[in-house]
Structure formats: C-alpha cells, structure tokens
C-alpha cells in the first residue's frame, strides 16, 4: 500500500464513515459564514446578482460535498473533490465580482475561508497530495484576483504580503487537511504492519498447534476409527462379512469427507460455526466454491456482516449465495429479520466497509427481510 495514494476512507473504512457528519457540519459552517459575511459587508456589494450567485455556489459546493461523502456513496473519488473545490473557487470569484472596486478589506471575504473549510472537512476522503494540490491551485486563483485588483481599497501593503495574507486561510486549512490525511494513513499503516506481523505469528502458532485444537474434527475421529479397524484386520485370522461391511463404510466415509472438504470453503465452516454457536439457520449456496476467491479483506467484510447478523436476535435465518456471471461475482446475503432487526444505518456501515475493499454494495431492507448484495470482479 502506498500512503501517497491512500485515503482514510480506504485504509480505515469505519473512520471514513464516522467522518461523514463532519462534512455536513463543514458545509453548514461554510454556508453560515458566507451568509453572515455577505450581510456584514453588504454595503460594499456592487453586484447583488454576483453576491447571490456566490452564496448559491457555496450552497451547491456544500451540498455536493455532504452528499458525495455519505457512506452510501463511498468511495469518494478525486473528481468529487475537484467539483467541490471548483464550485467553492467559483463562489470566491463571484464574491470578488460582487464587491469589485469597492472591497474595503480582504479580511472579511468569505471565499478563502469557504474553500479552506471544505477542503479541510474532506480530508478523510482524499489523499494528502490531492488536498494540498487543491489548496495550492485555489490559492493561485485567489492570488490572481488580488494581483488583478488595482481598485481594492485595502490599506496599502506590499503585494507579496497581500497575496500571502489573502491565501492564508486556504493554505492553512489545506495544509491541515493534508497533514491529517498523511498522519492518519501513517498511523493506520503502522498499525496494519504490526497487526499483519501479529497475524502471521498467530497463523504460525495456529498451524503448529492445530492438531490439538481439532481433536474432534472429522479427520481425527475418522483416523481413530480406521486405526483400530486395520489393526484388528491385520492380526485377524479371517475377514468376516461384518469386517467387509465396516471397511466399505469407512472407505465411503473417507471419500465423503474428502469430497466435502474439496467442495466446501471457509464460508461453509463459518456458517457451521455460527449455526452451532447461535442456533440459527445459516445456509451457504456456493456450489462453485467462489468464496475461496475472495481476498482476505473481502472475506473479513463478508464474515463481519454475517457474524453480526447472526448475533443479538437480529436474524432467525441467514442465506449467503455466491454466483458468477463469468466476470463479476455476486454475493447475496439475505436474512429473515429476528426480534431485534438491524437498521439501514447499521447495514450501511458494512456496505461502506465492503466498498472500501473493492466491492459494490447495495442494501435493501423491509420489516421482515434484510438483503445485502456485494459484487466484485476478481483481480
């Protein structure tokens, strides 16, 4: 994984979901600030249409940011960042036009603050490079406005200072956004390296001690039956009809065990475990063993959903079907709701996690049934 290309939403999907309300909050703050500042310097406005347009553009940028960052629309793409920033820069330009020649001080201009605030709240959804680039490019546009504004009545100051001051809000908030994005990815990757090392160690320990932990497994039980039977035959004088029948039974059991092992996957074992532990029906329909094709993270996302549905009376029956149309794989998780049925919001959390691990996810929920469908194209 490359920290230059990763966003928090991709590396830490739950963190991305938790950050979604911050975007709405940022959009509301940006709108409120632009409205308050427009009213406070309305006497400077020379073009009310441009002023209203600026407010409308701020509103549009905020709404798009909030909608685009919603967990149901994950993952947030770079194009969405550019759309939001373009609208916000458009708002700054419209504001500039609205007070052109009559802007007493740039300090009360909302353009830079709106751009900066929106970039800041989108930090969990973008790479640190794209955030910094967005901030720098927006600052360039704002600088052009300051340089090309000979009629400003701002108290005289050196041009470099004026440009720096005018861009301070955008640059500082973009730097904060980029700094956050970089740091959270750094923290997450550091943890993941540590977790992967621990997981490998755990796997090695598990493999080493697996014979002890699966004493009651099919093969151990079968092995314990085969041994005395063969030892008995080896030291017997004759083979009886009962011996022959028993040999046939054991051979058939061995074949069945091998066939079942070959045809089943970790998903069947998960279903069996859940069925045993939770006493609910968990049925897997994966005739082609496609569950084995899922990556580790995809398995974890599916496993987390199925395990969560099986807990706390959320479902009385769960069916997991995996099918293929030749290219894409479709994973349908259908549950009959239990006494405490899950909410859409809960399921959206799992859908967002699935989207973070390269799967499309759709949630459909009624009073009686829950359906979550994942799809992906194996890499």
């Amino acid at each position, binding site marked *: 994984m490359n920290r230059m290309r990763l966003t928090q939403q991709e590396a830490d999907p739950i963190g991305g979901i938790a950050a979604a309300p911050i975007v709405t909050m940022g959009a509301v703050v940006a709108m409120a600030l632009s409205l308050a500042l427009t009213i406070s310097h309305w006497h400077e406005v020379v073009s009310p249409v441009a002023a209203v347009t600026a407010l409308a553009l701020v509103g549009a940028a905020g709404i798009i940011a909030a909608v685009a960052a919603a967990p149901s629309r994950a993952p947030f793409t770079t194009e969405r960042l550019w759309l939001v920033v373009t609208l916000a820069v458009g708002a700054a330009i419209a504001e500039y036009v609205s007070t052109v020649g009559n802007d007493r001080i740039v300090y009360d201009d909302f353009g830079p603050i709106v751009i900066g605030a929106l970039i800041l709240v989108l930090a969990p959804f973008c790479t640190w490079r794209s955030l910094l680039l967005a901030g720098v490019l927006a600052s360039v546009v704002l600088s052009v406005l300051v340089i090309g504004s000979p009629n400003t009545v701002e108290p005289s100051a050196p041009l470099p200072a004026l440009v*720096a001051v005018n861009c301070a*809000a955008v640059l500082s908030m973009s730097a904060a956004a980029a*700094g956050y994005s970089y740091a959270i990815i750094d923290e997450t990757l550091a943890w993941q390296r540590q977790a992967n090392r621990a997981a490998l160690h755990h796997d090695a320990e598990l493999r080493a001690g697996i014979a002890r932990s699966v004493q009651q497994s099919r*093969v151990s039980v079968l092995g314990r039956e085969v041994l005395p039977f063969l030892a008995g035959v080896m030291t017997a004088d004759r*083979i009886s009809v009962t011996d022959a029948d028993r040999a046939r039974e054991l051979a058939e059991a061995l074949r069945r065990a091998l066939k079942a092992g070959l045809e089943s996957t970790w998903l069947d074992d998960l279903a069996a475990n859940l069925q045993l532990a939770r006493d609910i029906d968990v049925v897997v329909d994966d005739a082609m063993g496609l569950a084995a094709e899922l990556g580790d993270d995809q398995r974890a996302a599916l496993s987390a959903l199925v395990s*969560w549905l099986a807990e706390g009376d959320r479902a009385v029956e769960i069916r997991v079907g995996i099918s293929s149309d030749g290219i894409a794989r479709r994973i349908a998780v259908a549950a009959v709701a239990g006494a405490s049925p899950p909410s859409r919001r809960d399921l959206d959390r799992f859908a967002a996690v699935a989207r973070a691990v390269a799967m499309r996810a759709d949630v459909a929920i009624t009073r009686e049934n829950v359906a979550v469908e994942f799809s992906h194209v194996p890499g």
Partner: protein
Amino acid sequence: MTLGLPGHLARDSLSRSLVHAGHCAAWVCLGVTAVVGASSGAVDGDPVGWLRAIIAVGLALLLGLVARYPTVTLTLLYLAAGSAAILGLAMVVMEAGSRFENTNNLVLALPMTALLLVGGAGSGSAIAITWAAFGYALGEAAAFLGSTLVGSEWAPNAAAATALTLVVLIRALDGISRRSDQRRKTGLHRASQQTRELAIRHDYELRATARLHDTALSHLVAIAAAGSGPVDERLRIGIRQDLGLIVGRDWAVDHTPLEVGRGRHDRPLALGGRRAAGIDGRMPDPAGSAAAVGAGARTFEAAYTAAANAGLRLRVTGDESALAALGPTRAEALDAAVAQCLVNVARHAGVDEAELAVGLGGGEVTVAVMDSGAGFDEREVPEDRIGLRTSIRARIENEGGAVRLWSTKGIGTTIVLTVPEGGE
C-alpha cells in the same frame, strides 16, 4: 489487511492526526506571518518587519519541538513565547497611525491561530479543546495588553475565534462518533482473524483427509472387496507397513515416507527428526535418538534396554519426538508399558523381532507394538500373569490412556497404547 484502526488505538491515532493537522495549519500561519514581515522589511525597509519574520520562524521551530516532544513544559513554553510575540506584534501593528482600526485583523489573526493550534501534551478531545481554548485566551489577552499599551482599540479576533470554533466542533464530533463504538460493533478485526483461522483449519482438514484417504483407502477397499475369508498375506503385510503411518499421526504434516512411497519402510530411514531403524539387528541408540529429536526430548530408554536384554531386534517407525509432548511421569509410564510389551514378545511370541510405531495426533501420543509371533487370547491369560493387566493396562489407564489389543494365535499380536498429551 486494510481494515483500519481497531477501537483501542483509534482514539490516540485520531487525536495525534488531528494535532498534526493543527500543527501544519499553524506552520502555514507562522509562515505567512514571516512572509508578511519579510515583505514589509524588504519592500518598505521596515527593520521591525524582519524582526517579525525572525520571531515567526522562531515560533515555528518551537512548535516543531512541541510536535516532536509533546510535553507540558514545551507546550507552556510555546504558549508563553507565542503570547509574548503577539503582545509585541500587537504593539507594532496597532501603534498610532496604524492601518488597522482594532485588533480584529488578519495580521494578528495568524499568530493567534497558530497559538491555539498548539495541540499540546496529552491525548483526547477534552484535553485538545482545553489547550486550544487556553491558547486562544492567551492570544486574546496578549493582543488586548499590546493594544492597550499603545492606546488603540481591542476587539475579539474573528478569524482566531472561527479557528477555535472549528477545532472545538471537529474535536467534539470526533469524540461523539467514537463514543458510538462503531469499530467494536462492526467487529472487522475479529472477523479478519476468524476468517484466517477458518481458512487454515479448512486447509488442514482437507490435507489431513486427503492423506488419510491416500494411506488407508486401498486397504479398506481391499478388505471390502475380499469379503469373508482368510486374510490375504499381502494385505496383512501392506497394512503392517502402513500402520506406522496411521498410528497417532498428525495428518496435516507432510510425512516424508508417504511421499517416498509405501512398501519401502524396511529401509533404514533418518528423515527430518524422525527415525526408523531398519531390521538390521542393531539396537536403536538412545543417545543418537535424543540428539535426533532435539534437546529435552524423551526416548524409550527402558523399552530399548528391555529389548536389548531380551535379545529382541526392534524396528522403530513414526515420530519418536512425539514423546516430548508428554510430561516426564507420563512418558516414563508409557516407556515402562512399552518395555513390558517387548518383554512379553520376547517371552511368549517366539520371535526375535518386533516393531514399534510411534505417533502424535489428535491430542494423543500413540504407540503400536507389533509382532508376528504365536499370538494369544487375552481371556485365556491366567490371573497370575500380571504383566499385561498391571504393567501395561493399569499403567496406561492411570495416565488417562487406553490399551487396545488384537491377537490371533499363529498370526501375531498388535498392542496399541494411547495416552493424552501433557500430563505430569
């Protein structure tokens, strides 16, 4: 694995990232302050401008130290130095004839914002909000004092107040969202670990079943096909050759003899810590065996000695290091029971060779002692013959194990001793 931070790390990681974000913004604020000061010095020839730039750079470096070593002392030092800088800056920019009406201006907003973004020592939303509020209050106090000293108007700085509001809002939302504990509820890390374990177990089961299938199936099919009648000698020999593979085997582990091929076990083998002495009349060497199975491993010393004393040739197959899975007392009991089995072979079977198959699997250590001797019927063993009942069965059952015996007169005897792993 890309499934993000676990709940117990999320608080500190998010807090550190937000502090880092604040520091980045503060560095830009101080950088712009330095640019404004340097521009003033270079363009207007104002020496105070250069001083402002130098102070801004100094503060940025001090903030770097706070970022590197977030201690209370350094945090307070930065806040004190920043307050002093704002005080001086307020006196300079608000002096008589200033272009600014009051302290609510961008030149003062930049260092004031940098001051409240100190981050500071500690972790968590409440501490971060406290440090930010403290920094904001100090900045405003310094601006108030500076403007008062030069007789100009003070007004709360709107930009710094907005920055504080943003910090408080973001920190508060972060704290609230973490309180809902979505990470634990989703159980991603638990699921990730579970699926890995399931995959490993599934793989184990499959390989184990396949190997048991490969080893035992042909014999079972032959028995089933033979129907009732005498045991075919080739079948008997085949089973005998493979019994060492079946006895107490850890089925998922690659057993080289299986890959070498069945029917070759009469060759001396010494493969990967497993040892099989051929039927060559030589006694297994306990010392060599100990070296082969590793330090601290146990061997059948009593059994080897008993076999040697009785003039019995012994062929050992399987994994002798399995004894290391037993506690010393249990290993000793097993060793003594095997020794008694061998003594019985020497005394009653009428042969001068025996086989020993050792294995670990299914949480048990299993030893099979086989001979092709006279055989006997256990029911016919007189009560005064205490060897089998006391020395073998009682010893093993005392350790929670089991003894199974098959014997046919004129064909031979197989005794399988099984004890659970561990023990004293």
